[in-house]
């Protein structure tokens, strides 16, 4: 039993740290740390820097252009990038569709898509949820009807994160109506430029445009874009969700946010004294710090098991539940730290190039919006209630 990093792991950490220090643009790190809006180009800048180094897809095996890192190395990488304020690499291509293509795709799909995911040439988005199919994903209704060399797709997907920038979307579509709902689902890759595909923005509670609905009206998709076998898509979908959850503890980001929360509490004044001296508030910081520690060690335990078995188990659900709850606690505390200065809603203040006078402390502007927005974390990627169903069934056998 040894919780310390080995000499090799420490050397790896130093290498990553040095690289991030040299290559992460300062203006980009500032945007992330100050909670400013990130443009399509902001995400891609960092993506391309990492791609140049061969580090953009930490979880990929070497044969597909990944670095072949152990899970612990991947964790170290995530932690270093987060601590430095790097934007997160969007998961939709690298962490979601790519493992499915690697595992179930044909060689043409691997050769075409994987290099373009690595380079950032293709921006992917996710087409799972529908208006009538959230937690009950298998009830999805978007139809794909085979006509010669094409599927004709009709239906509606929703909650597509950053779909407004996407070049491609991976979709679960219904190709069969026989048997159980899970049995008639296929996994289809669709070019967003296909005629009949329409993206419509959804404005969320904090006032931002992060998610979309996507309509398909007689969109013709080549049969060559079917991954694996027709009507086997549910298997691939579950595989994808399992992969998605392993990085979802978000320990690196939460540690960075904790440091930021402490910094705010030291700068804020309450009755003229630093807010940090208010034991009632400080105890809440201590509580979340302790919870992050518990999540971090648990994450490392799961990772070291995963290093041996390579397949993420239902323990990932524990990481998802706790990771999301902690992210929410942090966003809530951060908003409360600035007290009444959570109120002003100056939308321009979230633009990095805005030169106006901030209302209240300059760090206050994004905090309420982030708190509002982060209610998503316990809903997306399989709601926490669904995760508890998974724990009940897969771990406990109930």
């Amino acid at each position, binding site marked *: *039993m040894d919780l310390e*990093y080995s000499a090799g792991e420490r050397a790896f950490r130093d290498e990553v740290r040095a690289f991030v220090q040299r290559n992460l643009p300062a203006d980009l790190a500032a945007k992330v740390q100050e909670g400013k809006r990130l443009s399509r180009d902001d995400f891609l800048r960092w993506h391309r820097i990492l791609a140049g180094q061969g580090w953009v897809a930490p979880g990929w095996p070497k044969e597909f252009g990944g670095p072949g890192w152990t899970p612990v190395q991947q964790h170290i990488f995530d932690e270093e990038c987060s601590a430095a304020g790097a934007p997160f690499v969007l998961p939709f291509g690298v962490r979601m569709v790519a493992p499915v293509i690697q595992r179930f795709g044909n060689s043409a799909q691997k050769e075409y898509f994987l290099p373009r995911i690595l380079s950032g040439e293709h921006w992917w988005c996710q087409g799972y949820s529908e208006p009538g199919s959230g937690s009950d994903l298998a009830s999805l209704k978007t139809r794909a009807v085979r006509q010669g060399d094409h599927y004709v797709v009709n239906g509606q997907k929703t909650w597509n994160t950053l779909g407004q920038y996407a070049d491609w979307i991976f979709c679960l579509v219904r190709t069969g109506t026989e048997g159980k709902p899970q049995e008639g689902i296929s996994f289809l890759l669709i070019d967003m430029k296909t005629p009949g595909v329409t993206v419509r923005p959804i404005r969320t509670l904090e006032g931002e445009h992060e998610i979309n609905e996507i309509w398909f009206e007689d969109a013709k998709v080549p049969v060559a874009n079917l991954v694996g076998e027709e009507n086997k898509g549910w298997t691939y979908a579950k595989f994808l969700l399992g992969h998605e959850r392993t990085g979802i503890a978000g320990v690196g980001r939460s540690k960075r946010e904790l440091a930021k929360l402490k910094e705010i509490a030291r700068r804020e004044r309450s009755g003229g004294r630093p807010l940090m001296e208010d034991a009632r508030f400080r105890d809440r910081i*201590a509580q979340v710090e302790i919870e992050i520690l518990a999540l971090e060690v648990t994450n*490392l335990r799961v990772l070291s098991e995963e290093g041996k078995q390579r397949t993420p188990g239902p323990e990932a659900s524990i990481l998802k539940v706790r990771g999301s709850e902690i992210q929410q606690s942090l966003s809530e505390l951060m908003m409360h730290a600035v007290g009444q200065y959570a109120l002003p809603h100056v939308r321009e203040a979230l633009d990095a190039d805005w030169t106006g006078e901030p209302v209240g402390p300059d760090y206050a502007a994004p905090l309420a919006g982030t708190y509002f927005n982060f209610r998503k974390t316990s809903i997306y990627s399989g709601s926490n209630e669904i995760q508890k169903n998974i724990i009940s069934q897969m771990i406990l056998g109930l």
Partner: protein
Amino acid sequence: MDFSLAEERRLLQDTIKRYVSREYTFEQRRKRLAAGPEFSREVWKGLAELGVLGIGIREDDGGMGGDAFDTMIVMEALGRALVVEPYLSSVVLGAGVVSDAGNDAQRAAWLPAIAAGEKLLAFAHGEAAARYATSFVETRAARKGNGWKLDGAKAVVLHADSADALVVSARTGGSAADREGISLFLVDTKARGVGIRAYPTQDSARAAEVRLDGVEVGDDMRLGAEGQALPHIERALDRANAALCAEAIGIVEALNEATLEYLKTRKQFGQPIGRFQVLQHRMADMTIKAVEARSMAILAASAMSSADPVERARRVSSAKAFVGQAARFVGQQAIQLHGAIGMTDELVVSHWFKRLAMIDVTFGDADHHLGRVSDMILAERA
């Protein structure tokens, strides 16, 4: 980074599990407790023969060696079996502090005998007015001739009534809350002026209120440097709290297993109650807490090898706070999910619950340790 158990640890785990499953079933425990207030000398001898009482005591001091991870394995198993014998007080605390602070003669006098199960120590540090404050000591030791005279009172001293000697903290300088000026003494429980008012505890162990009225001890009974004992006390309490975290997770996991089994077998409304989603999610929450609590117990054990006492304390307090909260949740929900049967003395569940509650209030509850971490956050520099 490596979370696997080394081969020797797996053997230790098997040995102690086998022992308790043979000699310390819930029925056997009940019968022994009914027979009288004394803990079982037979069990103590059995544990000594297995070498368990030497875990954490260096081999050249007559022990088996091992570190906090070995203690963790012992405590988990003792917790699950609800062992009431004085392992924590005599081995983890008593031998621990003599190992850290004792001179050669003191180590030779106590450590081999503790490992052999022949002698017992109790740790008499806490005081009523201190609550959990570690440096608050009002008991005083004044120079008298070549030795010392001790006056004061110690609160809820675990297993004081069966101990051969007490490790007593007393102030040889400074005032009540000062970090400096605390010394440690080995005090024979039969010495003149030692008053021990013993009583059973809620979890079927023993403790005592200890009075020290002009108790005279020689200077050779002083442990460590005069006035410099607080770091030893802090280390001893961190070690004890790490051990209590391990004991707690042994119980938490046992409670979860029992509750899960109950959910699968107990039928109401014509089906096993585990079919109800409200109970499934509760059980999932209990599972999450148990997994995370184990992570924190591992963290606490690893902290004991840290060279930095502040970092050690921060990790142990984080663990004790988290485990305290998690254990409270699991204990309460285990009873809730068992329903009325969980309230009965007959079922082991209620005994596990009570032990968890008492672990929380031993050497600082969750709020206390959260506050300790909180104060360390205040002291952090940007």
